[in-house]
Every structure is written in structure tokens, then in C-alpha cells.
């Protein structure tokens, strides 16, 4: 079988597997999030924690709970890293430096999983599994909480209540993330991913050199890392490392896992608003963007333009033999489109245009199909913008899902859309203005600019992948990217919750012949166009200076 046939078949099987899980998982999520009943273990948890599961929260309280919980998460993770040398299974690693510990704590709590450290030489087993991996579960669940609160805003009428943050959080972890992670981790273990508490196996290689085979609870972390669109690798090489991603089969499983929940949530959305076509419409937009980018990046990689890659005859720098160009490109587009940021190949060594397309994928605002929850609320915000644009064109009051888009809603949407580019462009600008941060670049010229731009794009969009030549473990980048991750995560979340609150207060209005249908191909085209145009207008100038200048 040739590369093209195999590659297309692989993408086809991936799409088919996702299609197969779409309905059962989407409907299951709906039941989890709307059920009146608590499991026994959940009731016990509410009792221990001291929260009332029946209390329905205003958007402000929902947001306050979320922020308080995330704030405590940052502090706890910071403390854990700062006291690592006193913890068991620390493998002899010392306390993590303050700036790096801050960056890493923020990174995992915000579902970014930007890693300025190298896992195998910085973090002991306890910090990895009881600190970092815990936030993999939590941050994934928090994203879904916000999406669900927004959906409740559409569904409910004349209320100021959006649900209970603690109940949503606990149910998503206990009933969805944990069981699916167990299944995924078992599969990964059987495929060869390691799962032990080894302190390292020292040996002499066949050629007589010394080598230390590392160990750790890798598979358990790998499963939730992909499923929760987190992306923080146990090892520096992330999913390119054979212990995290041993075979082409584990590779396709990991791609499947990172797309699974963002895709299925569109079904949940359609069911909760009682019009499944609405879910299909946003899924169609996500799929169109994802598929177009898969085609683009694969094409660029297979043609391997660039002086060095042309000289070598393939775009295999930073790619593993077992994955090759096709399976690497498929992973790369899926990971940058889901805010995961795990990598099975190193994006900095992609062709100029291939790397540029990955940057642009994040610049879309992580909606193709986006992170767990964050992808859904991201595309819904853009859908409101699309409806608003269409309303301006025909001169009607815009409405979406039987709720009016008034001045308040559109202000919140505009702020949401502006927040991320502001952080990315300001951060990149500041970094480029000073010689200190500039000296962190590995490559020079346009590729160096791409490294810095990629860092801020990745941080503000909570992706976490990198053009990893950049020496990001400096005080400047640790602090600046930490702030970018915090703002890029929580400013949009609070705006979305406020939006949910604003919609919930409204009465649902009847559809009229003048209502723009938001489920047909016309709207899918409109929303795709708005998504591309918003990102294009924002980022075209800087992309022209970086990847386009390099690739053309």
C-alpha cells in the first residue's frame, strides 16, 4: 500500500471511529449533565467537601466557584513543585525554581500544559501523578462546565441560575473522564506504554555505552492527557517518546482520544437545546476546518519545501520513523485544533507553510474542534457573531437558538473575540522589543519570530505545543507566558458565563419566518467564513512576517 492510500485510509478510519462514538457518548454526556440523581460516591464527595448539590448558582457564583477552585489548584500545584525534594519518589530531583513552578502550575490548571521544563529531568513521580495529572482531569472538566453553563443559558428562560459548578465538575470527572481514562490507559499499556514506579534502569548498551531507561506512571497520565485535551507530556519528547506513544496503533488511539470529547459535545449541545441539527451545524464547521488543515499540512509536509528538507529529501526532521509524514501531520493538526498541545513530531521543524498552518489553526481560537468544552463555547461565541453579522446584512434583530442578541450579548462576544489576539500580539510585541527574550530564539530570521509568536499563540489559546527551539525556561518567558495562559483561559471563561447569564434571563422567543436558520449549509458556510475571517484579519500581518515569509 502506498503512503497516500494508507494515509487517507487512516484519516477515514479515524473519522469513522469518531462518528461511531458521536451519538452514544454525546447522549451519555447529556444524561450526565441533566440527570437529577447523584451517585452514592458523588453524594459522599459533596458531603466531605461541604457543598449543597441542589443549590442552583447565578453566573457570578458559578464563576466565583470556578475561579476559587482554579486559584487553589494553582497554589497547590505550585507548593507541590516547590517542596518536591521532600516528597517520596522524587527521583532525587530538587525543588522546582519559583518562576518555572509558577509557569507550570498555571499551565496545567489552565489546560494549556505548556512545558518549559523537561519531564524526565525535573519532575518526580508524585508531582507528575498527584499534581500534574490531577489537573489534567480537573482542567478538562472545568472547560466542559463552562460550555454546559452557556448551553443552559440558551435553554432556560427568565432565570438567573446556570447550574451548580461543583456538581458539573464532579459528575464529569467521576462519570466521564475517569472511566474513559481507565479504558484508554489499559489499551495504551497493552500497546507498550510504560506504567511503573521505577527509579530508572541503568544498563550498558550493545555498543558498550551507558543508558538509563526511565520509568513512571506514564500510561495513566497519557490517557487523560489526550482525552482531556491537555497535552503535557510525561517526557520532554511528549507523544514522540516511544514510552508514551509506542506504535502507529497507539498513535491513532491518541489522536482519537484528543478529538473524542470535543466532537461528542456538539451532540450534547444539540440534545440540550432540543434541536440536534444545531449540533450537526457546528460540528460541520469544525470538521470542515479540521479536514482542510489536515489536507494542507499533509500536502506541505509531503512536498517538504525548505532548503534543509529539500537537501535531505523528506520532511522527517523531528518526526519518528514509525509515524512518518502522514501520521505526524494528522496528529499535529488534531493537537493544535483541540488546544491539546501534545506532539508526536516537532512543529518547529515542519515546513514553513506547514508550521504556519498549525499556528493559524490555533489562531482560529481553538475551535477545530477545540478543547474539551472550550471548543464548544468558542464556536458558539463565533456563531453568535455570525448571526449578528448576518443580521446586519439584512437589517433584522439577530437571534440565536431563540434568544435575542442584544447590545449586552454582542459586547461580551466582542470582548471574548478580542481577548486572545490582544494577549498574543501584545506578548509577542513585548518579547520582540527586548534583546533578552530575543536571545531565547534558536533559529533566526522569520523562523525566530515564528518561535516567539507560536509561544504566545500557544499560551493564550491554552494549547501548549511549541516551536520548541525557543529557550522558554527564562524568568521573562515563564512569567509572561504564565500571565498569557491565565488571561487566555479565565477572561474568556468569565465572559462566556456572563453571556450564559444574560441569555438565561431572556424569555425564549418564537421562531418567525424572518429568523435566520442556524442549522443549514448556508449557516455552516457563514460560520466557517466568520471564523476564518476573524482569525485571518487579526493574524495575517504577523503570519506574513513569520511563516509566510519563510515558506514562500
Amino acid at each position, binding site marked *: 500500500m502506498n503512503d497516500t492510500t494508507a494515509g487517507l485510509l487512516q484519516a477515514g478510519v479515524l473519522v469513522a471511529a469518531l462518528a461511531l462514538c458521536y451519538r452514544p457518548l454525546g447522549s451519555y454526556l447529556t444524561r450526565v449533565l441533566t440527570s437529577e440523581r447523584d451517585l452514592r460516591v458523588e453524594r459522599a464527595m459533596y458531603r466531605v467537601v461541604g457543598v449543597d448539590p441542589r443549590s442552583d448558582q447565578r453566573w457570578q457564583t458559578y464563576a466565583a466557584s470556578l475561579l476559587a477552585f482554579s486559584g487553589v489548584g494553582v497554589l497547590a500545584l505550585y507548593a507541590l513543585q516547590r517542596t518536591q525534594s521532600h516528597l517520596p519518589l522524587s527521583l532525587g530531583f530538587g525543588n522546582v525554581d519559583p518562576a518555572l513552578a509558577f509557569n507550570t502550575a498555571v499551565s496545567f490548571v489552565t489546560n494549556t500544559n505548556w512545558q518549559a521544563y523537561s519531564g524526565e529531568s525535573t519532575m518526580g513521580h508524585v508531582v507528575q501523578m498527584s499534581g500534574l495529572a490531577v489537573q489534567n482531569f480537573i482542567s478538562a472538566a472545568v472547560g466542559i462546565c463552562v460550555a454546559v453553563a452557556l448551553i443552559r443559558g440558551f435553554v432556560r428562560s427568565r432565570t438567573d441560575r446556570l447550574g451548580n459548578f461543583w456538581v458539573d465538575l464532579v459528575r464529569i470527572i467521576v462519570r466521564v473522564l475517569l472511566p474513559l481514562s481507565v479504558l484508554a490507559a489499559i489499551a495504551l499499556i497493552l500497546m507498550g506504554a510504560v506504567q511503573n514506579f521505577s527509579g*530508572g534502569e541503568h544498563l550498558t548498551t550493545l555498543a558498550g555505552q551507558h543508558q538509563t531507561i526511565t520509568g513512571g506512571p506514564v500510561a495513566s497520565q497519557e490517557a487523560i492527557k489526550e482525552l482531556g485535551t491537555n497535552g503535557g507530556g510525561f517526557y520532554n*519528547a511528549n507523544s514522540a*517518546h516511544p514510552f508514551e506513544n509506542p506504535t502507529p496503533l497507539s498513535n491513532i488511539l491518541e489522536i482519537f482520544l484528543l478529538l473524542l470529547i470535543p466532537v461528542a459535545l456538539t451532540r450534547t449541545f444539540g440534545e440540550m437545546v432540543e434541536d440536534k441539527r444545531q449540533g450537526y451545524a457546528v460540528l460541520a464547521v469544525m470538521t470542515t476546518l479540521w479536514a482542510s488543515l489536515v489536507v494542507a499540512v499533509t500536502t506541505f509536509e509531503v512536498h517538504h519545501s525548505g532548503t534543509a528538507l529539500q*537537501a535531505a529529501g523528506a520532511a522527517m526532521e523531528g518526526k519518528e520513523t514509525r509515524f512518518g509524514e502522514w501520521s505526524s501531520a494528522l496528529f499535529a493538526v488534531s493537537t493544535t485544533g483541540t488546544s491539546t498541545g501534545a506532539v508526536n513530531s516537532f512543529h518547529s521543524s515542519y515546513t514553513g507553510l506547514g508550521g504556519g498552518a498549525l499556528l493559524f489553526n490555533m489562531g482560529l481560537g481553538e475551535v477545530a474542534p477545540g478543547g474539551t468544552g472550550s471548543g464548544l463555547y468558542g464556536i458558539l461565541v463565533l456563531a453568535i457573531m455570525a448571526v449578528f453579522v448576518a443580521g446586519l446584512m439584512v437589517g433584522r434583530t439577530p437571534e440565536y437558538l431563540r434568544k435575542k442578541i442584544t447590545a449586552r450579548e454582542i459586547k461580551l462576544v466582542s470582548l471574548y473575540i478580542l481577548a486572545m489576539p490582544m494577549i498574543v500580539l501584545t506578548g509577542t510585541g513585548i518579547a520582540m522589543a527586548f534583546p533578552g527574550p530575543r536571545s531565547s530564539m534558536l533559529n533566526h530570521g522569520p523562523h525566530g519570530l515564528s518561535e516567539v509568536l507560536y509561544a504566545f499563540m500557544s499560551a493564550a489559546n491554552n494549547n501548549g505545543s511549541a516551536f520548541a527551539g525557543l529557550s522558554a525556561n527564562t524568568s521573562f518567558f515563564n512569567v509572561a507566558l504564565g500571565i498569557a495562559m491565565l488571561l487566555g483561559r479565565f477572561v474568556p471563561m468569565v465572559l462566556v458565563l456572563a453571556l450564559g447569564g444574560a441569555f438565561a434571563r431572556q424569555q425564549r422567543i418564537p421562531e418567525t419566518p424572518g429568523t435566520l436558520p442556524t442549522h443549514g449549509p448556508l449557516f455552516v458556510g457563514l460560520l466557517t467564513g466568520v471564523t476564518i475571517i476573524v482569525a485571518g484579519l487579526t493574524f495575517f500581518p504577523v503570519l506574513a512576517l513569520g511563516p509566510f515569509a519563510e515558506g514562500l
Partner: protein
Amino acid sequence: MTSSFLRQLWPSFRMLLVLTVLTGIAYPLALTGFAQVAAHGRANGSLVTYDGHVVGSALIGQSFTGEPQYFQSRPSAAGTGYDPLASSASNLGPNSPDLLALIKQRRAAAVTLDGTAPARVAPDALLASGSGLDPQISPAYAAQQVARVAKVRGLSTAAVRRLVATYTVGRGLGFLGEPAVNVLLLNLALDRAAGTAD
């Protein structure tokens, strides 16, 4: 919002503790237990032994530079080469002059070692992997090395080619990823063959 934020801090802390016990202790311990029972070898790194000693992991590449009797691995950016304590890619860009210089140097080395025509050197002989620990090479890179290994070892090229075929894995399920040759397992088989011949 400020007062409700403060009111939520204590429940937040307790919720974090509960979830840490569940997802940060119970979950990884249970899976480790399962892994150690159900897939002991794989869960501990697929270690391979030779003459009673552990000589490596089937999943982690090794450097064979300067050992012409062995098949060579890809160039590695992990530490000084194939250091599992420093897994890494080079992160050099597609137009990087540094990468171009490395390619030139590696091509010259391959030409000297294998007598391959410069234009026919396999790309993965010239380019470093993502992990720096890639245990495999492409069938093309293996084929390029067959004659040299056979000559140094005094074996027929047909015998070496047969061993290469044995340690070549096709695409996963016939269509996933790329065919690849495991370098350590292949070299180990060569040594074993030599050992039994003695």
C-alpha cells in the same frame, strides 16, 4: 463576586484534596497494579536481555556510531545521542543553515561508511527524530547498510537481508504509520547469529 469567591475557597481546597485522592492516587495505583500483572514486560519498558544482562529497551534506540558491524540508528538530538534522560528533537527549522550543515556532514559520513551514492542516502540517515530515541529506521536506510554489515561480519548479504526482513514491522494493521526496522533487535539478532556460529 468577591465575597462568594472567598466563601468558595475552603470547599475548593477540600474538593481538590478529594479529587487528588481519586485521580492522583487511586487511579494511577490501580492502573500500575493492573499493568504489573497483565503486561509486566511492556509496562516496565519492554527490556531486552542478552547473555543474562539487560542491554536495552526494544522501544528506545541506541547509538551505534563508530561500530560498522552494527546497523546505525538515526541521528539523535537527545543529549549526546540516545540519552533517555534528555529526550529531545533538534527543533531546527526547515531552512536552518545549521541543519543544512549537519545534513551535509551526515551525508558525507554515510557515503564513506556505506559507499552509497550521495543522492541516494536515505532521508532518515540525515535527519534526527522527534524523541531523539527513535528505535527504528526506514527500510530504505536499512537496505543502504546491508552490504557493509554483511562485509564487516563476513556474512552473505542475503543472510543479513533476511534478518532485516525479520525485524521489519509493516504499517500498523496494514495502513497505520510507516514500515520500520527495529535497530537494536536487528543488531542483537546479528550478534546472536554470530554467537551461535562461534
